[in-house]
């Protein structure tokens, strides 16, 4: 396999991995209700 193609595949994998790691930060899915795992039942105290 040519070097260029290998670099392209690695680049795609790298971007894919970054996307997988960071996609939750950019997700527009609503977090209302109980959508936040075991931490659904807790929140930061706004008074603190």
């Amino acid at each position, binding site marked *: 396999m040519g070097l260029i193609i290998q670099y392209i595949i690695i680049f795609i*994998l790298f971007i894919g*991995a970054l996307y997988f790691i960071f996609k939750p930060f950019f997700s527009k899915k609503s977090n209302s209700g*109980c959508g*936040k795992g075991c931490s659904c039942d*807790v929140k930061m105290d706004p008074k603190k």
Partner: protein
Amino acid sequence: MKNPNIVLLGNPNVGKTSLFNRLTKLNQKVGNYPGITVEKREGTLKAHNKTYHIIDLPGTYTLFPNSLDEEIVFQILSDKNNPYHPDLTLVVAEPATIKRSIILYQQARELGIPAIFVINMMDEIESKGMQIDIQKLEVYLKTKVYKTNARTGKGIDELVAAFPQSPVTYFGNFQIPATYSAALDEAKRIFPLATEYLTWQYLAQERISSLTAEQQKALEEIRTKHQLNIHEMQKLESQIRHDAITEDLKPIIQKAENKKLNNTSKIDRILLHPILGYIIFFGLLFVIFQAIFAWSGPLMDWIDGLFADITEKLDAALPDGPLASLFIYGIVAGVGGIVIFLPQIVILFLFLSLMEESGYMSRVVFLMDRWLKPFGLNGKSVIPLMSGAACAIPAVMSARNIENPKERLLTMLVTPFMTCSARLPIYIVIIGLVIPETSVLGFNLQGMVLFAMYLLGIIGALGSAWILNKVIKSVRSSYLIFELPTYKAPDWKNVLTNVWDKASGFLWDAGKIILMISIVLWVLGNFGPNDKFYKADEYVTAMKPNLEEEQFDKEVASYKLEHSFLGYLGMGIEPFVRPLGYDWKMGIGLISSFAAREVFVGTMAVVYSLGDEVDIEDDGQKRSLLDKMRSEINANTGKPAYNMASGISLLLFYAFAMQCMATIGVVRKETGSWKWTLIQTLFMTGLAYVAALIAYQLLK
């Protein structure tokens, strides 16, 4: 036509999961309810020419939710549009606590749910000194009562034969007091199709997530208008039901001496003894701790060796090139980095399942709760905290046993402070470098500092829990309800199923995140922005023309790492780490050890041109690394890079910083939230930075 849903509803500790395992056999899977980490057990059963979809609901004492788990139960039972809404509910009871189960059964029936009653553990009825008049109970409950023993399979066939039946219409025992009639009538207008009791439940709960915002608002207006207090309503219902059932069951259930309870009391006199109880518990913890460290060692070495073999074979078989290198040293090594934790996870969960199954876990909560409560933690938090001293990954996962969401979250957030085994190589190297090898009061000073680092981990965990407890609050008010179940022999099927669920869940869910971070770090470490990376050998030859081949290779590896993206990132963070007494080389170590703390030692070995395979347990190799590090000069200060000030600063940094992507992956999986994962990472790293900064500035 959709497969009929059969849900198992019941109190904790009634053998519901054993019954589920017996019904579904191996046709089951464990996951989470959509979007949340409440464990969902579902499976299938083929009978009567149908495939039944069996769902094991989380254990609950009442239909008034006090936790996320209980909220799920109410949602499934009350919302006809919920995909898990039952076509038939099996309310599972056990003889000793049958009264509570009957209340749950009545609540379910009054919601309009078709339900039948199952008494599990029927073999224990005699040892518990009870007599139940089944015929009278059937008349009272208006359903057939099925008797099972999920451990032996007795009564299961009769139960399955009942699946096609439709229970008769049920009219409840609970008469809603007349004082609530006006409010109830108004609420009925919003929910014309709901049963009266379901409407009462809507009024008596703070929030029902399956209702629309308008419906919630309308309910709130009715509560305000009629000055309804939801806690009073819930208390009133419990009282009315309890009084009625106590009277009603007198001719149905007779209790004599409970032999099993007597045996349990005898054992509890030892296991809950104010002194002996703690000695036994900490003795058991010691055994678990030893097992995680010692028993898993050979297995971990075997996995390590296996992946080293695979790497070697792939290296020989695949053609040279960057893609093969990524596959072998990024992906395969990443998978190896996940699989290696399996022995520890399996051993820990084997012990935890045995403790849970035998009934001892409830005693642990009882013993430890009073000590951990002031820090916002739970008695069960002691298991994750102690096992965190071996490895934070299985430890964070073991926090699943904590029912209260806030206490579970706090435990997960602070467990990585405990001194895990991965910190040990760093501590050994840094202490060896900066702490003199002398004795103080007859004790080895280096050993004392190492002990202090372990203590610091405990202080860090408890102190952080205390702080976080102040700033995190629970959405719903919570109180601890737990019971001390009778002791029983563990059901091995349940134990093995539980261990398998946890191990496969870790491999798949946390593994994905760890693998992705491995790929990113590999790319950053194996590519660079300029010629200095790609023509490193030419640059090294020009700088040091007379090197022998082996030393030349090590110099090239060091030069390449310096000029990789990772190296430049290390240099990029130098302004931030300079106040801590570190130079850019240590910066590279900090970034690469984000993958795992122990990588720091290997990275520093490459940076100092010693090759990447320094074995810290080999005295000769350790000495050459220490000598090289000792002679290293910090370009910023002109002083030795590793002196007392920078060394202590580095120790404190690694004591507190969240330098472990596998832990991050597991926390993400267990909290179901990147928000809390990020808060934890920033909190720990922030604390590490401040502690290291103060130490360096005071000691320099």
